[in-house]
């Protein structure tokens, strides 16, 4: 029980942080090695959304003599590490540490804290969409509420990108904004206050999910004006997109009237022995040079008012931006996430393309695959487990392949009985337990033999998903493909590419999340996701089940 609580807390903490950006398998490039340190480096554990502040390392060294060594981590792991006192870091730097600091143990880990910069969550709306909604008029934009946003989403006028509400601060706080708006109050919210209709309406417009602002920005650039016209994220990311010159049209920033949550990027001292260095770094970061640099280069707001006045030209003026109070109510958070996953979200429909070639018998690969499938079809009721596991209403096809793609096998998780009022964590029904057991039985029965006809299998799965999408457009479609070796049967990559181009637009809009495992050909798979859209995940060094869990946040 205690353990479950702890795990659940850790996952919850994660939401509070920087969008839970995890280091992407394909972007986990080694940071530039720091110059030889004069004193032991000050180890900084930072969330990946802070990658853009890395040039500060040199600036801090020059100004203070303190050598910062940044380690960017998956938020969930980082937060857990801080909580357990096993981060190995002297200081931590998160977008938002409110969950960490709402917890007595989290508080005891943090010796000193200082906010460094600010970035509120905002709705970035394509200018044409803003005009259509009449929100391009400043006096109207100032009064837009989360309820208005939900109504526009329901009416099909607003379709947006947003990081996963179950794993990210931006996603969760957006949901909380809708809850507050519908309840007509922003403080003292409890699980019973949740207006289920408003949440459902808001999520009608949720078109582009993900778990990492870099990924979402890339996809948004590709799809703006096609099937998305808005992006909910930290202001700094939206302003950065506007400056990038890569958008089809600029984004108009709207700060919903009843409130938004602001990331305040506290720098947290964990190791008291490094207090002096920490204080030097804080003094520098809150000084004019660093504050100005942060504002100009990263578009985050200075916490120092004098500097804020100096850079007012590059940041939007906001006469009144209301802060949405942060609720430490665990029942509300747990219930809202559970309901989001199992009831409100656009249900997932995906095909898992599984390599069952002979090479899978080597090195415990088969066991890893079974473990990973057991994990997503498992009984783990912790929040981490809940994010990974199959959700109510989800449709799943298994597409094993070796020399050829085999027959598709379909699974469906039944819908649950919604709570009468508000939200709460609902126990699994018997029917759901049965469906999950079927998936596990399927995994246990896989036979490994023959060659690797990967591209045939991916193409077949995409066609299957496209057919399904035509019949049931209300689902979120994707293909998850997994291979441990090089394609040696069926279509070559060139043939695949040619046939892929012939697929209808609908099929081509379905992302392929490709898992790199065993002796798979990284270059070719990278090419594949470039053609199909989606993302490459590397399971060569991390356990396969962990990668499957990561992918779930993108589905």
């Amino acid at each position, binding site marked *: 029980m205690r353990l479950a609580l702890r795990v659940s807390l850790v996952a919850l903490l994660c939401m509070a942080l920087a969008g839970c950006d995890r280091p992407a398998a394909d972007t986990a490039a080694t940071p530039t090695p720091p110059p030889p340190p004069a004193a032991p480096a000050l180890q900084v554990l930072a969330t990946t959304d802070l990658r853009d502040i890395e040039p500060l390392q040199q600036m801090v060294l020059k100004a203070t003599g303190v050598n910062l060594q940044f380690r960017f981590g998956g938020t969930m792991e980082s937060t857990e590490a801080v909580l357990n006192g096993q981060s190995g870091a002297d200081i931590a730097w998160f977008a938002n540490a409110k969950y960490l600091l709402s917890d007595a143990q989290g508080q005891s880990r943090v010796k000193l804290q200082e906010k460094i910069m600010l970035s509120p969550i905002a709705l970035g709306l394509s200018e044409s969409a803003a005009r259509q909604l009449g929100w391009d008029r400043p006096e109207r934009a100032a009064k837009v509420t989360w309820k208005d946003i939900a109504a526009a989403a329901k009416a099909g006028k607003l379709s947006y990108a947003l990081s996963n509400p179950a794993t990210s601060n931006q996603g969760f706080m957006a949901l909380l904004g809708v809850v507050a708006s519908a309840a007509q109050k922003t403080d003292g919210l409890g699980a019973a206050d949740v207006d289920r209709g408003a949440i459902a309406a808001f999520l009608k417009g949720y078109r582009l999910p993900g778990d990492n602002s870099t990924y979402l920005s890339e996809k948004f650039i590709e799809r703006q004006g096609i099937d998305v016209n808005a992006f909910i994220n930290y202001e700094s990311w939206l302003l950065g997109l506007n400056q990038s010159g890569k958008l089809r049209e600029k984004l108009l920033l709207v700060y919903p009237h009843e409130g938004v949550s*602001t990331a305040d990027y506290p720098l947290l001292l964990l190791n008291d022995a490094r207090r002096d260095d920490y204080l030097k770094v804080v003094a520098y970061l809150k000084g004019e040079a660093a504050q100005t640099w942060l504002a100009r280069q990263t578009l985050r707001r200075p916490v120092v*008012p004098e500097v804020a006045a100096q850079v007012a030209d590059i940041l939007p003026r906001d006469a009144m931006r209301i802060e949405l109070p942060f609720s430490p109510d665990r029942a509300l958070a747990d219930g809202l996430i559970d309901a989001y996953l199992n009831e409100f979200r656009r249900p997932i429909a995906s095909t898992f393309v599984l390599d069952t070639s002979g090479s899978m018998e080597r090195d415990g690969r088969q066991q890893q695959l079974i473990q990973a499938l057991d994990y997503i079809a498992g009984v783990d009721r912790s929040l981490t487990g809940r994010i990974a596991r199959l959700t109510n209403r989800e449709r799943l096809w298994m597409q094993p392949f070796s020399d050829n793609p085999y027959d598709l096998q379909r699974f469906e998780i039944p819908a649950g009985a919604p709570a009468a009022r508000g939200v709460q964590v609902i126990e699994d029904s018997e029917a759901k337990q049965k469906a999950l057991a079927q998936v596990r039985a399927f995994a246990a029965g896989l036979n490994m033999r023959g060659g690797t006809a990967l591209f045939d299998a991916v193409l077949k799965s995409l066609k299957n998903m496209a057919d399904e999408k035509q019949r049931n457009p209300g689902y979120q479609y994707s293909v998850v493909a997994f291979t441990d070796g090089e394609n040696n049967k069926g279509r070559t990559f060139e043939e695949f590419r040619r046939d892929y181009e012939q697929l209808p637009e609908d099929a081509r809009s379905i992302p392929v999340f490709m898992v790199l495992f065993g002796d798979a050909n990284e270059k070719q798979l990278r090419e594949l996701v470039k053609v199909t859209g989606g993302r490459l995940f590397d399971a060569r060094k991390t356990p396969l089940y962990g990668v499957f869990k990561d992918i779930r946040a993108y589905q």
Partner: protein
Amino acid sequence: MNKTARLLVTLALLGGFGGALWFSLRGAPAQLAATEPAAATALTGLIAVDVEDFFKNPRVVQVLADHRLPVQVTRIGSRDMAARVAPGASPDFFFPSGVVAATQVTEAGRKAGIATASYSPFHTPLVIASWEPIARILVDNGIARPLQPQVYGVDMDKLTQLMLARKRWKDLKHAAAYDVSRSVLVSTTDVRRSNSAAMFLALASSALNGETVSDRDTARRTALRLAELFKRQGYQENYVNGNFEDYVSQGIGKTPLAWIYENQIVGHALAKGGIGGGMVLLYPQPTITNKLVFVATSERAKALGALLSNDAELQGIALQHGFRIADADRFAKAVQPTGLAVETRLTQVVDPPSFELMAEMIDVVTKEMGQ
């Protein structure tokens, strides 16, 4: 080395020794202590964050050195201080942020058989830092009244009732300037950890009870009723400057009403040479004052306590950090150039409930917040 040079060196050395001897016989005057601070052992002290900047001030360091009372201070939480009172292992002094924590230290000293002496060299009232549009709404609703430009008195009884009635800003009359769904709430730091939040609880309990709470039943009942004023705030900053920093850097949208020590905003105005546009102060009527209490556990620390209270220069430096001293006119003169308007004469001041009752009330609120 020629003869002349050798002679000069000898004279210099002699002069040095002789001078030192002469000075030490005279009883350590200022110049010597300044050049040889190692001559006096530093007094060790555990201090609250509120006075950390004061002790860091180079002029304070100088004055203390001049009086052969240099200090070595470590900042810890006020509520953690009592636990550090131990025979033979206590620091020379404690300087917690308020009376409640100081009483804890004195109590712990009594139990451990350590004699203590208390001094209150400076004080500051608790105020609500706010914004002109907010103050006007409160005036229009009969909660506040203007006292002078940028200064308002706020009726603590009415404000407490308004908050307990769960009124939102947009429910008030003439609230167009702040027509939001947020409840009217004064934002405080975490009452479980912070002295200033405890002072809010003390003041609100007097408002609700009609007089200072003086018995256990009333304390429990009142705290139970007031707990929601903390709980409904949601996440609260748990370090003393968090609330004030949010007021300064995030403004009216985050903290329309910020419960702070007056010295925080006065010190800020003095350091920055002014304040941001639209900032105003609301003085609760009645209000409550925070006395910073210096608790000495050694003879030399007693001398330091007396010095802090009586030395004109140290008192002047305390003013520069925003604190009030016994001399109200001096305070008014110090603040005047910043353009920050303050209410220099506070007429209605309530006493906080006794230490035991405060602890009881904080306990009740803590339990409620954990629910």
